[in-house]
C-alpha cells in the first residue's frame, strides 16, 4: 500500500514539474523581451542584449563584409564590459526561417538583421524600433549614401541601419578564355554571347556559370538588372510600392523574362544550372570550367581567397550587355542596401541606449571605414580618400566599375516575399524552357493582386 502511495506521489510530482516547466519557459520568454522593469537602471549594472545574425565564424575568412562587421562587434564588446551580448548565429537561410518564426510568436531578439523585403511586415506588426531620433543626432549622418535607408523606411520612420551595400549583378570573366575565341573583352551584345557560348560548349566549357538551385541567383543577380533595362526603374518602384500602376504583365517585363529564357535556351549556362548552388557556380568559374559568372559583390571575396593565381590574374569585371528597345538605362547594375541591423520595439531605458550605441558603432560609418580600409570595398557610407593601390587588381577594378554606375533596385531585397518566392520558382521553369515568360508574368500579377 505504501509503495503505491509513493508511486502516486512521484508520478504526480512528475506531472506537476512538467506543467510548471511549460509555464516557466513561456514566462521567461515574455520576460526577456520588454527590457528591465527598472528603466534607466543605475550605471555599471549588467545589461543583457540578445543579438541574432547570420555571420558564421567559419565563413569569416572568405567574407570581407562579415569580417569588417564582426571586428567592430568585438571592439564594441571590449569597450562595453557591462553589457552581456548573447549572440545567436546560424546560416542565412536558417536565420531567415528562424526570425520569421520568432516574429510569428512576437519573440524577436533585441538586435537582429532585417531584410528590406520584411520591413513592411515587421513594421505592420509593430515590432520595430524607429531610429530617427538617434540618427538625427549621429555625427556621420551626412556620410550615408543616398537611398540606403529607402528599403527600411515606412511612413517616414527609419527602422534600421544598413550593414552592407549589396551589388548583386557583376560579370566576372576570364579575359584569356574570351580572347582565345576571338573576343577582346566581355561582349556588349547578347548575340555575341550566344555565338561565344557555342564555341565554349564545343570545348566543354560553359560561357557563364550559374548556380540556381537555391532559386535566388537567377533573379537576384541577372533578372534584377535585366528587368530594369527593359522596364525602367519607375516600374520597379511602382511594383515595390504596390500602387497598381505597374503590372508584371506589362510587355516590358514579359520581354525581360523571354530574354532570360533565350539566354538559357542558347546554352549560355552550364547544363546543371538549376541543380547546383551559387557557391558551386563560383567554383566552376574558379576552376576554369566556365568563362564567366554573374554574381554579387560577395563573389569578389570568394574569388580572391579561392581562385588560382592563374584565373585570378585573368579575371576582369563587366556589366550585363544592354538590351534592345528597353525603357531603362543600360549603364546600371542592381545594387543598394538590402539588409539592415534593427532593434526590437520593446527595448527601453538603459537597454535601449546600449542597443542604439551598438547599432551605430557596428553598422554606421565605422563599418564602411573598416570595410574600405581593410578590403577596399564600398559600404553604405561614403569614405573620403581611400587609397586602393595596395589592394589586388580585381578589387580596384571592381571599385572602379561599380563607382561609375547607377544602382537599380534588387528585386528580392525589396519586393514582397510571396512574389519573390513565385518569381524564383517560376524562373527555374522559364530557364528550363518549360514555362513561357507570359505565363509566369500572369501568375506573378495574380499574386501581386491578392496581396
Amino acid at each position, binding site marked *: 500500500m505504501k509503495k*503505491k502511495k509513493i*508511486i*502516486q506521489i512521484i*508520478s*504526480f510530482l*512528475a*506531472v506537476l514539474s*512538467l*506543467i510548471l516547466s*511549460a509555464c516557466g519557459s513561456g514566462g521567461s520568454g515574455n520576460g526577456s523581451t520588454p527590457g528591465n522593469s527598472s528603466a534607466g537602471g543605475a550605471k555599471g549594472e549588467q545589461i543583457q542584449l540578445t543579438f541574432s545574425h547570420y555571420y558564421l565564424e567559419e565563413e569569416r575568412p572568405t567574407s570581407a563584409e562579415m569580417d569588417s562587421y564582426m571586428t567592430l562587434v568585438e571592439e564594441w564588446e571590449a569597450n562595453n564590459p557591462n553589457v552581456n551580448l548573447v549572440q545567436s548565429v546560424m546560416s542565412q537561410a536558417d536565420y*531567415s*526561417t528562424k526570425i*520569421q*518564426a520568432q*516574429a*510569428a510568436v*512576437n519573440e524577436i531578439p533585441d538586435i537582429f538583421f532585417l531584410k528590406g523585403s*520584411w520591413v513592411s*511586415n*515587421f513594421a*505592420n*506588426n*509593430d*515590432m520595430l524600433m524607429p531610429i530617427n531620433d538617434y540618427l538625427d543626432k549621429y555625427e556621420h549622418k551626412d556620410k550615408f549614401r543616398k537611398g540606403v535607408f529607402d528599403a527600411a523606411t515606412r511612413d517616414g520612420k527609419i527602422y534600421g541601419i544598413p550593414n552592407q551595400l549589396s551589388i548583386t549583378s557583376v560579370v566576372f570573366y576570364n579575359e584569356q578564355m574570351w580572347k582565345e575565341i576571338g573576343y577582346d573583352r566581355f561582349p556588349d551584345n547578347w548575340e555575341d554571347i550566344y555565338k561565344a557560348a557555342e564555341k565554349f560548349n564545343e570545348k566543354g566549357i560553359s560561357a557563364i556559370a550559374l548556380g540556381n*538551385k*537555391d*532559386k535566388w541567383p537567377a533573379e537576384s543577380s541577372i533578372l534584377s538588372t535585366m528587368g530594369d533595362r527593359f522596364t525602367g526603374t519607375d516600374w520597379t518602384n511602382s511594383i515595390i510600392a504596390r500602387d497598381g500602376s505597374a503590372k508584371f504583365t506589362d510587355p516590358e517585363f514579359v520581354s525581360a523574362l523571354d530574354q532570360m529564357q533565350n539566354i538559357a535556351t542558347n546554352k549560355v549556362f*552550364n*547544363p*546543371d*544550372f*538549376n*541543380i*547546383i548552388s551559387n557557391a558551386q557556380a563560383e567554383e566552376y568559374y574558379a576552376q576554369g*570550367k566556365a568563362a564567366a559568372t554573374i554574381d554579387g559583390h560577395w563573389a569578389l571575396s570568394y574569388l580572391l581567397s579561392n581562385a588560382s593565381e592563374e584565373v585570378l590574374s585573368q579575371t576582369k569585371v563587366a556589366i550585363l550587355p544592354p538590351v534592345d528597345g528597353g525603357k531603362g538605362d543600360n549603364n546600371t547594375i542592381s545594387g543598394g542596401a538590402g539588409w539592415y541591423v534593427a532593434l526590437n520595439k520593446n527595448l527601453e531605458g538603459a537597454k535601449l541606449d546600449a542597443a542604439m550605441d551598438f547599432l551605430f558603432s557596428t553598422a554606421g560609418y565605422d563599418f564602411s571605414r573598416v570595410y574600405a580600409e581593410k578590403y577596399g570595398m564600398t559600404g553604405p557610407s561614403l569614405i573620403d580618400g581611400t587609397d586602393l593601390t595596395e589592394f589586388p587588381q580585381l578589387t580596384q577594378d571592381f571599385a572602379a566599375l561599380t563607382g561609375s554606375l547607377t544602382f537599380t533596385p534588387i528585386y528580392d531585397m525589396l519586393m514582397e*516575399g*510571396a512574389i519573390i*518566392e*513565385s518569381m524564383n*520558382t*517560376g524562373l*527555374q*521553369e522559364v530557364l*528550363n524552357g*518549360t*514555362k513561357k515568360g507570359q505565363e509566369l508574368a500572369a501568375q506573378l500579377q495574380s499574386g501581386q493582386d491578392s496581396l
Partner: protein
Amino acid sequence: MNQAIRPSRKAFILYMLPGFILYTFIVFVPIVLAFYYGFFNWSGGTKMTYIGLDNFIALAKDDIFIQSFVNNIYLTVLCIVGQIGFAFLFAILLNTRGVRFKAFHRTMSYFPSVLSAVVIGFIWTMLYDYNYGLINIFLKQIGKADWIQPWLNNESLALTLVAIPLIWQYIGYYMIIILSALASIDPQVLEMAEIDGANGWKKAIHITLPLVKNTLIVCVTLCIAGTMKVFDHIYVMTGGGPGTSSNVMALNAYKTSFLSYKMGYGSAMSIGILILSLVFIAGTRWLLLSFTKDKEV
C-alpha cells in the same frame, strides 16, 4: 489484464497523464491552433484579420497545392510498390535456408533507415551530379555518353529520381517488420507445402503472403503516412524544383508559411494536408481490408 497486477483507476489515470499531456501539447494543441489560424489573414506577428473560410476556399483552387498533392500520391504509389515490394522479396530471401550471414544482411539492409534524411539527400545528390556523379560516369564508361544529363533538372523525371533514395532508405525498415511476421509462421505449414510439391515462389505467394497479410496492411498504412509527410529528402535534393515539379505538400506548406510569410494560409494548408492524408489512409485501409476479406469468402 490480470486483476492482481491491474493498477487502481486513480493510479491508472496518473500513469497515463504525462504521456497524455505531452501528446496534447505537441500534437493536439498545434493542430487545433493551426485550424484556428487558418481562418485569419496572418503574416506572423500580432496583426491577424479574420477572413472566414477564404483561406480554405483559396486552397481548394490552388493549382500548386493540388499539383503537390498529386505528386504526393505518385510518390506514395512508388514507395508502396518499391519499399514494401522489395522488403517482402528480401525478407523471403533472407528466410530461406540457403542464405548465409543472415544477421549481417539484416543489419546492413536496416542501416540506411538510421541515417538522417539530409545525409541520404546529399549522397544521392552527388550520385546524380552532372560532372562527377557516379551515374553519368557509369554512362560514359558504357559508351552511352549521349544519355548524360543534369538528372535532377529534368522536370518530368525529378520526382521519380527523388523517390529512389526514399525507397532505398526504407526497404530495410519494412523488411524487419515483415521478417518478424514471417518468424511467426508455423514452419510445419511450409513443410507441408513442400511435401505437396510447392517450390519457393509458390510457397511465397500461396502460403506466406496470405499469412502475413495483416502485417503488410500495417506496412502500407505506415508507408502512406510516411510518404504523405515527406519533406527533408526533397528539400535537400531539389527544394521542390525545378520550378514546382518535385514539390510536395509539406514543402509547399513550409514555403507558404516561411518564405511567402502567409502564416494563415500556411496553417489552412497544414489542415488540408491532415485531412487529405487521413482520408487517403482510411480509404486505402478500407479498400485493402474489404478486398482481402472478399477473397477469403
